[in-house]
């Protein structure tokens, strides 16, 4: 592979966008301030004015900016998503990241020259599915759902005409993206329709006789003894009782980190590495971006001599959920 893969970094605000660009992002991804993207949190994302300034900042430095429109509109909402597509195009986005077929179709018909990336929320894990999106709606890149092993990713990259982007670092969805209704079940709000998982308004922390309790719309997601590290109560990372044992029945709080697989994935032809975390602050974005910039540069300089530096590991561990990282589904044993 002679083409250098892209480092795609999250920007939930103008300061985070500048941090990403200043620390070596090739591209940043941003969302509007509404339900059209899967990080619809209050105070997060871009007003039109901020986005125009962000676009200028990115483009003046020769980088790219992708607009995320990766939630699923209902019939009466579709027009809002279509206006968001128009706005992203007018403001000068370099690509759209989309999940919903109707939104993709609109973008393909009205802005045919604006590249369309398939969001992870669309969950296209095979060469057949990728071809389908390429043929129907001209998708040129897809963010892979985190369901394949590294071996399967390599084989898919070798066969796919659609360029592949993989998650490199950040919070780990352990369910197939776009097909998880755990938050919907408990709170009525899902990533697909509302752009939120475990919405903050449904979260309650309580001091109980047995420790600090994290509840989501009344449901006890976890309970912590004094001194235990607490975690934001997402359903998939809670502790529950199964057959008399209390444990993380679905997954521990941990972050995905594919640094150990980087040379393999680069050699396999992965087009872009994505850092998760538009909800994170500029300091987080700056540090993670810098580590991954250095790592990608090291692979490009000499893939055979690539070694993970201790400073990278320490930085990433400090920034990880629960202070731990995992290869997640890339590793068969995780399954």
């Amino acid at each position, binding site marked *: 592979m002679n083409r250098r893969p892209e480092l795609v970094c999250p920007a939930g605000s103008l300061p985070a966008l500048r941090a990403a660009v200043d620390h070596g992002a090739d591209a940043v991804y941003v969302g509007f301030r509404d339900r059209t993207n*899967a990080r619809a949190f209050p105070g997060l994302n871009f007003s039109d004015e901020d986005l125009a300034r962000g676009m200028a900042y990115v483009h003046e430095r020769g980088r790219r900016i992708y607009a995320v429109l990766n939630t699923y509109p209902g019939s009466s909402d579709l027009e809002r998503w279509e206006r968001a597509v128009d706005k992203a195009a007018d403001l000068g986005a370099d690509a759209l990241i989309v999940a919903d077929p109707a939104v993709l179709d609109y973008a393909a018909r009205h802005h045919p020259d604006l590249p369309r990336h398939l969001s992870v929320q669309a969950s296209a*894990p095979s060469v057949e599915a990728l071809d389908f999106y390429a043929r129907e709606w001209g998708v040129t890149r897809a963010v892979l759902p985190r369901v394949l092993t590294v071996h399967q990713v390599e084989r898919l990259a070798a066969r796919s005409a659609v360029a592949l982007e993989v998650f490199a670092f950040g919070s780990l969805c352990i369910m197939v993206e776009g097909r998880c209704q755990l938050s919907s079940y408990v709170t009525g709000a899902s990533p697909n329709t509302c752009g939120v998982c475990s919405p903050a308004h449904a979260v309650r922390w309580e001091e109980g006789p047995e420790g600090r309790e994290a509840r989501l719309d009344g449901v006890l997601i976890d309970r912590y003894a004094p001194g235990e590290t607490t975690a934001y109560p997402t359903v998939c990372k809670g*502790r529950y009782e199964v057959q008399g044992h209390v444990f993380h029945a679905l997954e521990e709080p941990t972050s995905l980190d594919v640094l150990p697989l980087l040379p393999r994935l680069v050699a396999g032809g992965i087009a872009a590495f994505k850092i998760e975390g538009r909800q994170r602050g500029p300091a987080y974005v700056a540090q993670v971006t810098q580590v991954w910039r250095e790592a990608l540069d090291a692979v490009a300089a000499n893939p055979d001599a690539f070694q993970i530096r201790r400073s990278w590991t320490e930085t990433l561990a400090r920034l990880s959920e629960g202070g731990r990282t995992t290869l997640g589904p890339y590793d068969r044993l995780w399954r």
Partner: protein
Amino acid sequence: MRLSLAPVPYAWSRADLLRFYEEAIHWPLDGVVLGEYVCGKRRELRREDWWAIAEAWAASGREVVLTTPVLPDPDADIQHLRRVVGNGRFSVEANDLTSVALLRKRSLSFVGGPGLNLYNHRDVALFQRAGMTRWVLNPEQGRKDLADFRRYSEGTSPPEVEVVAWGRSALAYSPRCFSARAAGAPKDDCRFVCRDWPEGLPVRTRDGVPFLRLNGVEVQSETLYDLAPEIPLLKQLGVSLLRLVPQPEGTADIVSRFRLAIAGASVPRVGAASRYWPSADAGKAPVAGAGGTRDAPASSPQVAASRSEKEGRGDGGA
């Protein structure tokens, strides 16, 4: 309005599966969806067994649909998937985009299963153009979505609409097997521990409230949803089929009750109401086992968070 039997979600034994379909063929059902969709390693019934069941049901005048894996593994499941798609006899339900793509390639019509993300009238129309003749709503779609869909589809001929009207909700799928994890076994050497739990492995919250069921790579709700009292509403919204999820016991009674309700009888609610199908007794719907009223509409969450809460949150979608 027709009644269809959902595929069995659980890892039942060969004998139990055969007995179930032998009994169920005598129930007042209009159709059946057959096959294993959760895990390709479950092979209690061979291809010939499923085929024989499908033929028997077709011979009894039922609509037969063959289901497909919800998360086809590119190594283990793709051959099986190709065979189902190319079976040449029965229609096929697509539960993911790989299946849709394979069906589209052969210009075959298909049922759009609840695993597809079709959220608006344009999505449905696009997939209809690709061959979808029936659209099964997903677990978080309900009254408002379907009413909007109807309003925006006026003057068109959309596909038939099917709603899962009885059973535990299929909430999530993962590359990880949760049944194996709970037994401390790796997925590649799972020893089929899921067979020990014919209705899924129960998960309780730490204060003892039944919450979820683990079924291999599938996570189900503990709550058993029952839309029988909503049948007048479902009819009004043009729902053509109701799908009932099999359980180890009592499914015959459930089928009879739905048949009565479709005929116009007023039936009491046996399971739980769904927040997505509010009707007369809405607002009291138990949702996630913990009780309490939760009436926030799905489409307009009242989000109010502090910065610090957001910083630590753990969802990892794009």
